[in-house]
């Protein structure tokens, strides 16, 4: 099985069972940084991280250039990558059974570009045009065929309280109607909306209010998606303890929106950045973190917002999101601080495999 895959891996190379990444500044996110550390990888998983590790016999060594940084692969918690906008089944306003992963094309050029930007895991979501759009899934950008890139078919369900879900020619036509419909649906204890976490599109303070009210009324496991205008709802969100999948940030946005992620994080809201690709590109994921830092967000919080928080939101915290023993060896070697936009990706490892290199075109 594994042998068969080799042909699919773009980079033709021998596949050692054991790999050691040596040197560089290791930023595990979940633990303290290690200058010039080493990471032992076997069977695609991280076995050990330390300042110095004895290199096992037969192990391959990946030497990281001086000054380079090693971080876990970034995770985009809400994207339509490689789906060409084809993620809205608009005949009805409630289509919970539609699966976003089924619109994914693993050979899409944007997937390569995402790897080159240090993104290794992406949540694929249905669009905002339906009140309930369907299931959110997760793919690993391992350069493999769709079915083998699939990490989760159902990581949650997408609902939308945004204006896009309101249409003049079908129910609901207003947010009052939208909330009434959702409430009606949730009242049934066997409701399909209660089977998996809800990802609720809510951008404006009013939409966020409605999401929080629904959550409180039905005790939902919920993530607020977008929350771009959450600046006025910081305290409410913090009190709710719900995570926020924030973004995207557009360069022409008002200053207040750039300041919002920092304010949310400071208030203790678990925050992950999202690209909503193709609304922006996966290359934009760390740019958003860089912008947020520029507008007051704590550096560490910004890095967590690209790694551990999205992993938590997607239910992947045991599998990826940080450089920790037992987790997938999704590692990205950067030429420097990834939050400095002039830094670039040197090497990307996904499940311990070199999946992308800096000289890649």
């Amino acid at each position: 099985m594994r042998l068969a895959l080799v042909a699919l891996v773009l980079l033709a190379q021998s596949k050692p069972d054991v790999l050691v990444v040596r040197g560089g500044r290791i930023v595990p996110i979940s633990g303290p940084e290690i200058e010039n550390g080493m990471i032992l990888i076997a069977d695609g998983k991280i076995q050990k991280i330390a300042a110095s590790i004895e290199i096992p016999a037969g192990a391959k060594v990946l030497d990281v250039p001086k000054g380079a940084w090693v971080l876990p692969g970034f995770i985009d918690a809400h994207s339509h990558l490689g789906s060409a906008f084809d993620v809205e089944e608009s005949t009805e306003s409630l289509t919970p059974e539609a699966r976003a992963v089924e619109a994914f094309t693993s050979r899409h050029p944007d997937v390569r570009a995402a790897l080159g930007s240090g993104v290794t895991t992406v949540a694929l979501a249905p669009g905002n045009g339906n009140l309930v759009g369907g299931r959110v899934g997760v793919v690993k950008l391992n350069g493999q065929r769709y079915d083998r890139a699939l990490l989760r078919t159902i990581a949650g369900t997408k609902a939308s309280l945004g204006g896009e879900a309101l249409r003049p020619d079908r129910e609901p036509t207003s947010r009052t109607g939208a909330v009434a419909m959702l409430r009606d649906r949730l009242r049934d204890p066997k409701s399909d909306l209660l089977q998996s976490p809800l990802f609720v599109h809510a951008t404006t303070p009013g939409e966020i209010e409605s999401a929080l009210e629904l959550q409180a009324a039905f005790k939902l496991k919920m993530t607020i998606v977008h929350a771009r205008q959450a600046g006025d709802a910081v305290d409410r969100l913090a009190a709710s303890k719900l995570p926020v999948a924030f973004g995207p940030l557009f360069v022409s946005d008002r200053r207040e929106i750039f300041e919002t992620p920092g304010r949310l994080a400071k208030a203790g809201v678990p925050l992950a950045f999202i690209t909503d690709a193709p609304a922006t590109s996966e290359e934009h994921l760390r740019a958003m973190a860089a912008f947020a830092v520029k507008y007051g967000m704590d550096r560490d919080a910004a890095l967590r917002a690209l790694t551990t928080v999205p992993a938590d939101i997607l239910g992947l915290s045991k599998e990826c999101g940080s450089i920790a023993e037992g987790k997938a060896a999704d590692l990205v070697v950067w030429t420097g601080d990834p939050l400095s936009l002039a830094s670039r990706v040197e090497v990307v490892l996904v499940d311990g495999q070199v999946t992308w290199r800096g000289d890649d075109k």
Partner: protein
Amino acid sequence: MRLLALVLALSLQASEKSPVTVLRGAKVYTAAGAPLEHAIIVIENGKIAAVGKEIPVPPDARVIEAAGKTIIPGLIDPASRLFLPPGERSAGSAEQTVLDALDLYQRDYREAVEQGVTTVYVGPASLGIVNGLGAVVRLDAAHTILVKEAALRLTLGASGGESSTALERYQSYPQLKQAFESARQYVEAGEKYRKDLADVEAKKAKKEEAKEPTKPKVDPRQEVLARALDPKGTLRVRIEVHTADAIALALQLAEDFKLRVILEHATDGGPAAEAIAKAKTPVVVGPVFRYGGYSVDYLNHSTATAAALVKAGVPVAIGSFGDEKAGQWGPGASRFLAESAALAASRGLTRDQALASITLEAAKILGIDKTHGSIEKGKAADLVLLNGEPFESGTVVEQTFLDGAAVYTRRAP
């Protein structure tokens, strides 16, 4: 930090009275040569009177201590949307000027100044092939117009963030050609009239019979096109191009009429780099941050385009362009000019090239490099004082100077 701000504020107050200001001790990226460590910049009457390491400080000068800081030239956005109200788009024409569209009461420019931008080029965002005249605007309180007619803007392909078809592009080219052809005839008619008039005058002087020539009608549109055609003129022609075929057509048009052409966007510039370099045509690259959609024109968008062009020897400036593809047409993109250059640097530009692309190279493309764009003696004192190395996370603008006056001072956090 608080103390520093206070010192800066005090020194600033005094400097209003004092004609000479000195910035002492910073690392200076002049954009015109190697960086100078512990340098001194002398500012007099809004201009840089001297810059270097061993420069005497004039006795009555107001000295701003900047040791440990970095100074770069004021940033120049060669493709900004500042002051342009949303929806300002309709069929253009050569004589239309963006100055008629600017909303000088918009406040967004303040944020650009806070990020070190001191000068912007704003072009018309019209629908159609001939858009009109762009201008260079200073980000001082008066919004001084530095160059009233900086360039005539044309479009070969997508205009205003829309998508174009190959057919449209191939139709645009002969239309543009015809426009310049008719302008050429207009110029010739004018020359003929002046010659005929001189002949008539001469005949009249000799008391001979002479028929007055008919004066050709003044056409403001043709006048502008004629200025673009004038070999001795200064009016440049900026052409929006994305696809490789459009780039080829633009270069052909430049060749046909010997225009002073600058390409905008050049989204497919990577593969076309050699041809552009051969034609010695400068390019304003951008937007570096990509937004939305799969329009044909932006399909091959790449952060590496700037590097590919520079590598081929093309003069490159990076513009913010506003995030047209996000459908937001916001003026705020100029704020992130430095970030745009930084991201381009992550894909092949050196940091020096990245800095030049938003300072001196931009000035050259706008035709203002004799007075702006680098930290050199005699140029306008447009300076940005940073707390660290440019393009690094954590580096912030502490002060922006425009014509020697601090137009922004960062408040202590």
